[in-house]
């Protein structure tokens, strides 16, 4: 009887462990909209901080694991990206760079247009070289 209970308990634990492992293995990366933002910043300030000290800005806005930040800015352009995604370019205060925010096909509000001031959340991945855009991915509009 005791062996039977131990066996059943072992099978249940194995099933729960297996289900957790399967779920964890197939987990997809969350959009920023599903995360609580750690900071709020304007697009101009974000660009300025990356320009002033990239290492410090990486530590603050990129972090060691994915974190959402809330950004306020004016839309300079909306451009199509790969696989139905869209890049929203926020004015960075510099002519040759932008804060580039990538939205999935269904995450971008249809009403957004160039010249509009908006709030959004995104996962900051850092500032690029050559064209010093600050890049945010998995973005979500903030109403």
């Amino acid at each position, binding site marked *: 009887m005791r062996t039977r209970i131990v066996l059943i308990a072992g099978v249940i634990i194995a099933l729960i462990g297996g289900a957790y492992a399967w779920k964890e293995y197939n987990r997809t990366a969350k959009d920023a909209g599903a995360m609580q933002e750690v900071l709020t910043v304007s697009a101009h300030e974000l660009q300025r901080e990356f320009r002033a000290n990239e290492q410090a800005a990486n530590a603050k806005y990129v972090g060691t694991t994915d974190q959402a930040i809330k950004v306020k800015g004016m839309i300079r352009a909306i451009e199509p990206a*790969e696989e139905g995604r869209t890049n929203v370019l926020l004015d960075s205060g510099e002519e040759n760079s932008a804060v580039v925010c990538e939205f999935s096909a269904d995450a971008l509000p249809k009403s957004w247009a160039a010249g509009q001031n908006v709030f959004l959340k995104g996962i900051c991945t850092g500032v690029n*070289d050559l064209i010093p855009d600050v890049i945010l991915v998995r973005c979500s509009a903030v109403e």
Partner: protein
Amino acid sequence: MNLRSKFLLLFLIPLALTAQDRYMTRTGHVEFHSSTPLEDIDAENDKVTSVWDAASGALEFSMLIKAFAFEKALMQEHFNEDYMESTTFPKATFKGKLSGIGADELAKAGTYIVSVVGTITLHGVEKPVKTEGTVTVDAHGAIQATSTFPIRPEDHGIRIPGLVRTKIAEAIEVKVRMDYRKM
């Protein structure tokens, strides 16, 4: 034309010619594929910046490691935290030269085989690379450059634990696609 205007022209003409030959993209696409009998791993980054000077052949790329997107979050986390150490090495870059195409070819539609030679810096380790690619000019003058080449993680000091070694290919296939526009 007075002397002052002539001097101004002498200064401006070379600048204009240089700008005409330079192309850029902020939405270049780089993807990689690892295939083993145990697991296939794919990731892509379409926020790659690149500048190409068609006159001199000088070619540069820059990409943020954290901008690579995977189908599975767990793979993305292991990629950033355990293998690429993207907090310490946030970018990968290429600096080199593209040859086999000139201003004449860029002026007419066609697909041209080109060679690329340069240095890739990945995970803080520089390695020379030599590969072939294509540059396609369409009827509207749009320019697309593509290339496929292998990278060995060990060549760049990327340590892969023995437990998962059989799940990651020894040579990762890297595909590059750049849609350039004039600067």
